[in-house]
């Protein structure tokens, strides 16, 4: 019964016999329990449950646009609820972070909080320190001053082993994908599992196939990175980021350099991934104002500091001239580009 279903943000996937997306569809009355059972089969495993949406589409019980619209509407509802009650425990916290690169102060006392289980977008002008901020979250860069805290653990105080252990809770999608050129897509996705787990090869293969299906690259596993388009590359990198079931997913410009249709499809994929797994997601994007529709929380970086941070709906309505200029893309305003 829908009323007996656990909360959508429940961290245990086993609590969702029909997958999180299946539960949402059931709660909304879009499908019946018997239809979900028909789509999933008798004893679906966790991987199959995570593909419930695709399976319903395959069975003709939903169309792909209906599914995408449903998921987007779910995210919109959540974003509105977050705006009304923006209380969420921070999972990552920066305190007075400073970083200089090539003699230029990139971060100048950054204080920010990333809410747990939400999609946070970091916005700012190019070269404004967004990627540097992201790299500090996972300890790829060390600050000159200030500290980064993940779940109460200060990164700078961790021994290399502890830092590596903490990193297993993260995954990161890099701007260029950072797929390994010498491995095909399937091996790229399998790489973290082969290196960091003791899973059997058949289990790894199954998980890789599921992840590739989730990003609509089910039949592309044999291709090498140089044979992929920009959009496919990002999707393959997203599959690699998801394969380890991280708690925190960092996405560095997942839509940079893509046409508007692929960009929209990647945003849908991010929304879909979020609703399926409830990762804490932090993404950098220049897709303004589009990104405000896909994130709960927005942080605006300007001149090495956090200019504003809060629910995306509030930031979109901000009167701050820098944010207004950024939203409108106007050449006139406090941000001087020429």
């Amino acid at each position, binding site marked *: 019964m829908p009323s007996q279903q656990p909360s959508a943000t429940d961290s245990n996937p086993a609590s969702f016999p029909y997958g999180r997306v299946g539960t949402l569809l059931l709660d909304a009355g879009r499908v019946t329990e018997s239809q979900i059972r028909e789509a999933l089969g008798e004893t679906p495993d966790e991987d199959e449950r995570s593909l419930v949406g695709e399976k319903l589409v395959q069975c003709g019980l939903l169309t792909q646009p209906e599914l995408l619209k449903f998921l987007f509407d779910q995210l919109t509802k959540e974003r509105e609820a977050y705006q009304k009650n923006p209380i969420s425990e921070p999972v990552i916290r920066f305190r007075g972070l400073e970083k200089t690169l090539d003699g230029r102060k990139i971060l100048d006392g950054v204080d920010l909080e990333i809410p747990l289980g939400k999609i946070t977008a970091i916005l700012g002008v190019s070269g404004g320190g967004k990627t540097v901020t992201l790299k500090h979250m996972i300890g*790829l860069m060390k600050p000159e001053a200030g500290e980064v805290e993940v779940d109460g653990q200060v990164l700078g105080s961790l021994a290399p082993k502890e830092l590596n252990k903490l*990193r297993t809770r993260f995954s*990161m999608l*890099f701007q*260029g994908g*950072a797929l390994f050129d010498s491995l095909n897509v399937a091996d790229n996705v399998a790489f*973290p599992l082969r290196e960091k787990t003791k899973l059997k090869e058949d289990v790894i293969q199954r998980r890789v196939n599921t992840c590739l299906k989730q990003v609509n690259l089910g039949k592309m596993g044999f291709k090498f990175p140089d044979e992929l388009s920009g959009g496919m590359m990002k999707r393959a990198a997203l599959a690699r980021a998801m394969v380890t079931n991280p708690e925190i997913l960092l996405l560095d410009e997942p839509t940079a350099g893509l046409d508007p249709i692929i960009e929209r499809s990647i945003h849908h994929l991010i929304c879909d991934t979020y609703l399926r797994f409830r990762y804490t997601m932090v993404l950098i994007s220049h897709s303004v104002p589009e990104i405000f529709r896909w994130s709960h929380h927005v942080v605006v970086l300007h001149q090495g500091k956090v200019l504003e941070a809060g629910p995306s709906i509030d930031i979109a309505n901000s009167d701050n001239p820098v944010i207004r200029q950024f939203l409108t893309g106007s050449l006139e305003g406090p941000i001087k580009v020429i």
Partner: protein
Amino acid sequence: MFIFLVSTIIHIFKPPFRPYNLLKQIHFIGIRSLFVIVLTAAFAGMVLGLQGYYTLSRFGSEGLLGPAVALSIIRELGPVLSALMVTGRAGSALTAELGIMRIREQMDALETMGIHPLKSLLAPRVEAGLIVLPLLNVIFDVIGIFGGYLVAVHLLGLSSGTYFGGIENAVEVKDIQVGLIKSLCFGMLITWVCTYKGYFTQRGAEGVSQATTSAVVTSSVLVLVFDYFITSVML
């Protein structure tokens, strides 16, 4: 740079051990350098045969041609030339590959997965260099001596008994040890310099080209400098 080497060597002995990665690097550095090593060795031996015969015949000492060719190759030319060939063929490729991985954030990707690039990328390359260079050196020595034999016996008319008999009498185990120690040192030197330059590549394609050039030049010069010092110590 020294700390980098020490860290890499420590990672060689740290689990998990991935024999496949090591074999892949042995194939890349060793097997794929084989053709150029054989070719270089054959011609180096043939030139030594010609020059040696020309010089020794002035003093009526053609009978010493075999030992002259063998000792030159085993003690000097074998380790040095095989090291220089590996630097040019595999060292430059190592630097370029690692440099591209660095600028394309593939090394950062490894770190985010909790995998240290020193362990997964650099340690197998240094280890492969240590294994492969002495083996290539032995192959160089054998082919080089046969190159000298071809010229001395089949072109210049020296008897094969004189050529090989002289070698048997003149070459000692110590000479072979010197050659092997040199090639072991050069193996470490080349992979150390080339992986270091690749690992710390910066600034895009230009950075990769600078790192590659610098790696080849530095390795080649260091091979010759170290050759002098090792020779002077082991004479």
